[in-house]
């Protein structure tokens, strides 16, 4: 099961890198979203995907899944959610002000003399 997850995470990272190297700003932001999905799935799989009850003491199970990675993922999800929201609004503002979403045309040369 971990092997399958590793391959899936690898594919997510590959797509993320491919998208982030493109010119359009929106494709780059989609790339960052895929990157964080990959990272979150990776945290889930590194602690092992062995069977076990959901981490609720009311389940009265013999073994539970590791609760720590789930808490880490929850934290990382909200953080990347906040950053992505900010990034999207910034991209919108930049589109309004600069009139382009092409990263090639966002070169700056202030202070280059």
């Amino acid at each position, binding site marked *: 099961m971990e092997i399958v997850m590793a391959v899936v995470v690898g594919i997510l990272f590959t797509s993320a890198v491919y998208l*982030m190297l493109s010119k359009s*700003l929106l494709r*780059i932001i989609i790339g*960052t979203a895929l*990157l*964080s999905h*990959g*990272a*979150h799935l*990776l*945290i889930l799989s*590194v*602690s092992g995907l062995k069977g076990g009850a959901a981490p609720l003491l009311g389940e009265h199970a013999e073994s539970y899944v590791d609760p*720590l*990675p789930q808490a*880490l993922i929850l*934290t*990382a999800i909200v*953080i*990347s959610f*906040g*950053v992505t929201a*900010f*990034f999207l609004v*910034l*991209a919108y*503002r*930049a589109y309004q*002000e*600069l009139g382009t979403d092409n990263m090639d045309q*966002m070169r*700056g040369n*202030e*202070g*280059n*003399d």
Partner: protein
Amino acid sequence: MTNLLILPILIPLFTAIILMFISKYVKVQRGISAVSTLITVAASLVLINTVHQDGIQTVNLGSWVAPFGITLVSDMLSALLVMTTSIITFIVLLYSFKSIGVDRERFYYYPVVQFLLVGVNGAFTTGDIFNLFVFFEVMLMSSYVLLVLGGTKAQLREGIKYILVNVISSALFVITVAYLYSVVGTLNMADISRKIAVVNQPGILTAIAILFLLVFGLKGAIFPLYFWLPGSYYAPPTPVLAMFGALLTKVGVYSIIRTYTLFFYHDTGFTHEILGILAILTMVLGCIGAIAYWDVKKIIIYNIVIAVGVILFGVSTMNPEALEGSIYYLVHDMIIKAALFLLVGVMIAITGTANLRKMGGLIKHYPWLGWTFLVAAFSLAGIPPLSGFIGKFLIVRGSFAGEDYVGAGIVLASSLLVLYSVIKIFLNGIWGTPKEYNGVSKGDARYLWMTSAVLVVLAVGYGLGAEALRPLFSQATEVLVNPDLYIDAVLKE
């Protein structure tokens, strides 16, 4: 008082929350943020005194014993950095009063600065690797806002690049923490160190060490990963730039120091050699940038890169003397970089340009500014009585003792080029024929100069009082050289 070491995190946090409610009352905001930052400075001074008297301070949040809860740890290194951060933020706040402009002040400038202080102080104090990530994000999120606040075209454009780089490095940080957790099964830094010592650093941990170098190198701008810094740091206004230049990269540097002395000290042959080579290349590339430009901001920005290289070179030798030099140089560099950015900010405010070819002769009407800048420039280059000297001296002596002559030679050569780059500012901008300027009034320029001069005075005092401060730095080095002190203080066995 057991909760003393949370105060430098909690005071700015509560201040930021209060300031958010009164965003339209600019004068009240100024007063509250200045007073509370002063209290933070006082708290950090008390903290240093306590750490000096009683050794490493730890707090287990929520009273959960060490490896299971989040532990905050304040050893001398982090206490010193917390104090430096608070002092610099205080001075930059005073500078902002006349420099940042009411438009930005009304749109949550002061709360965001306080959040930045929370993030930086938290990153220096935490003893948990995932908590470090969270404090990194607190710091980065505030830096995104500070970078784009105001919304000029350059800020928006460079903001996009800065956020993209940091989103990628944050994802890498999460991935690295995940790998580390899968190997050692713990997140507490002291416990990680103990578990790594038990398994004696197999190959996978060397790979994780390099990943950490990649993550923190992206934050701290080391050689192949510094490409984002010159553009992004050029965009924001002066006080924001001063905070970025003094604090943000140094958090990355601190994290490299912490992980490479606490976690990965068993098999230093590979990891520390890579760190050393990258540090040397960082110095070389930084020097090339610093002498290439004719723009005052760009020159100082490339000097950040050089200083990061010098500090990390000292760390890579793992020699007690060079480590002490690195810590000394780290604190010096935070102070002097903030001072230099504020001073060139005054020059830009007066002349209305950052281009050296368009300014000149400032010494005629602003002699106090010119001489302060000269002192700061000498201090940056490391002229003996001033503060940059002792750190570089110890680093060079330590690396000679470790027979690393190439690196030591490059540190010395880099000082020469640093001196050249800042003297170029002095000779072209401050010396020379006076020109007509239509920037800020002379009174405002004097106020801005006075606040930045406080930092220069601090830097000079730091250099002259090096002998008196020596016990503090020895105490900080002791923990880096002997990680068991840290582990025993946290795990209390």
